[in-house]
């Protein structure tokens, strides 16, 4: 884990995404799939928090040695600013953050399921799995063709590929999770990895539990520090001994979790919960009672 002033080597548009390549050897050398970086916003802005992005590429060898790539949709204010950054500008970058995906020791057939920018994280994983002699198949998708991240690279790194888009503009119409049962059967999946929206991760969790396939998912939860200081980013995860659950920090104890142990209902509770009105009458919503 390092914090560096990293120069932007290049920026480019990849469909709906912006992709930034940084010169950050201290981070690139240590980066593993599933890990992420935290980028500081510039001073004087009204938005203070770092933005966090999965590492898509980290080159340790060759002409690009010491570089690092990540990709994002410039939707909110922070990502929009980042999208306007130019080559040779410097960024305040922390990384690699979080626990990476674990590689299977014995098992061989790895099925990777990604949606949206999750694909950026999983192509990195695919490469590393291949380098370890694993078979990699991938299901990727997005709302539209433009939202499918680097489909050509995906094809390059995986044996077979299923692509699904919400509007059918590329591949099959639908969401990646829909291809999971057939694909898992077809490729003989022994391990499943996933990254993307919570609904996808949750569906993967259910499928894998049902079919007793070991799985790992990389989650996203709102973060403040990204390095474990503040307990902002917790996810409810059942203890190994099943004696209950703990709210674990996605930034240091994740973002990669065993989906079978995540309490999806609790984590995804669509509406926040609140205390009953106290006998006195006035609502106690001011502060969460812990």
């Amino acid at each position, binding site marked *: 884990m390092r914090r560096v002033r990293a120069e932007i080597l290049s920026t480019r548009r990849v469909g709906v995404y912006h992709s930034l390549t940084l010169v950050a050897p201290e981070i690139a050398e240590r980066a593993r799939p599933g890990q992420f970086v935290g980028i500081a916003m510039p001073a004087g802005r009204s938005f*203070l928090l770092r933005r966090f992005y999965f590492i898509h590429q980290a080159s340790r060898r060759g002409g690009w040695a010491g570089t690092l790539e990540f990709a994002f949709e410039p939707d909110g204010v922070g990502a929009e600013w980042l999208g306007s950054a130019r080559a040779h500008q410097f960024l305040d970058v922390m990384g690699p953050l979080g626990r990476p995906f674990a590689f299977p020791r014995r098992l061989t057939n790895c099925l990777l399921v990604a949606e949206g920018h999750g694909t950026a994280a999983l192509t990195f994983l695919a490469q590393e799995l291949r380098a370890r002699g694993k078979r990699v198949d991938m299901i990727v998708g997005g709302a539209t063709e433009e939202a499918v991240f680097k489909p050509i690279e995906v094809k390059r790194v995986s044996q077979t590929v299923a692509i699904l888009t919400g509007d059918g503009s590329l591949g099959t119409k639908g969401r990646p999770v829909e291809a999971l049962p057939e694909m898992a059967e077809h490729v003989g999946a022994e391990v499943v990895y996933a990254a993307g929206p919570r609904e996808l991760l949750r569906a993967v969790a259910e499928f894998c539990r049902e079919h007793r396939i070991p799985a790992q998912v990389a989650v996203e*939860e709102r973060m403040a520090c990204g390095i474990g200081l*503040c307990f902002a980013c917790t996810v409810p995860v059942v203890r190994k001994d099943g004696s209950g659950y703990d*709210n674990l920090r996605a930034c240091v104890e994740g973002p990669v979790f065993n989906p079978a142990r995540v309490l999806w209902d609790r984590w995804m509770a*669509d509406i926040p919960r609140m205390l009953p009105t106290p006998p*006195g009458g006035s609502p106690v919503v*001011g502060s969460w009672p812990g």
Partner: protein
Amino acid sequence: MAGVKRTLAVDLGGIALSTPLVAASGTFGTGREGGLLDTRRLGAAVSRSITLAPRKGAPSPRVAETASGLLWSVGLQNPGIDAFLADELPRLTRTGIPLFVSIAGSSLEEYVRLASVLQDVQGIAGIEVYLRGEGEAQEGEPFLSSAEHVVGVVGAVSRLSRLPVVAKLPVSLADLVESARGCVRAGAHGLTIDGSAPGMAIDTARLRPEVGAISGFLSGPAVRPFTVRAVFEVARILPEVPILAAGGVWTGNDAVELLLAGAWAVEMGTALLVDPSAATAAADGILGYLKHKGLASPADIRGRVRIPEPGTGEEAG
């Protein structure tokens, strides 16, 4: 001014800190994270707030970004005092930075039990008493909603404690100045004036509160004017009492502003989360300021904001 021997050291009424910069409760981790947090210029740190029993904390999301602010609601996630003492405290004190342990309770009894347990523990610089009304209603009134409750808790903890007790008073407290005076009379060694105050934000796309607990507390630069004002008002009536200021300190200049208002030291929370070396940068900023003004130490600027003598003014009305 040649010959001035310049230091950042401050003395909080017997508690010696190497700098006036203190890591605020809830933003210093558990002692296990290490790595990126640059602690070289931290004069002290406050642990996250510890309760008697373990707490799982608030539902997610626990933070939201607002204009120059951070809305947070962690809900006091902590392992409970026993596990804290066994696993967390040893690591925290190993850093060598003076450590205050923050305690939070839902009743007077809980506070008293927490304080008692801490009396026999080695290596703690003091106790910071968290005083947000998170407890249950007592006789209809929410716990800690009045100066009376607050002073009651702080007094009980102070009386039994051999360790210095610092009462962390939210600026949103009714009768802040009265509460401050009461806490000191009841035995508090010092006060932390906390500018973070209850706030809420709504995700308009999804029509739901931005944080899982519906509302949270707002911290960060947005709230600094509240901290400055509250510190100024409390310090004027309690000039002999060590005051720590929390809420909106990011740069050295921010720290200087609060020292001028009357703080003896400042806590940094949000800034450390975003910039793990914010304290080092702030220390440099304070040193630069002292140098520029030809002063020797933070004590030289404490409470030195220039205001008219009471009585010479006339209402502008």
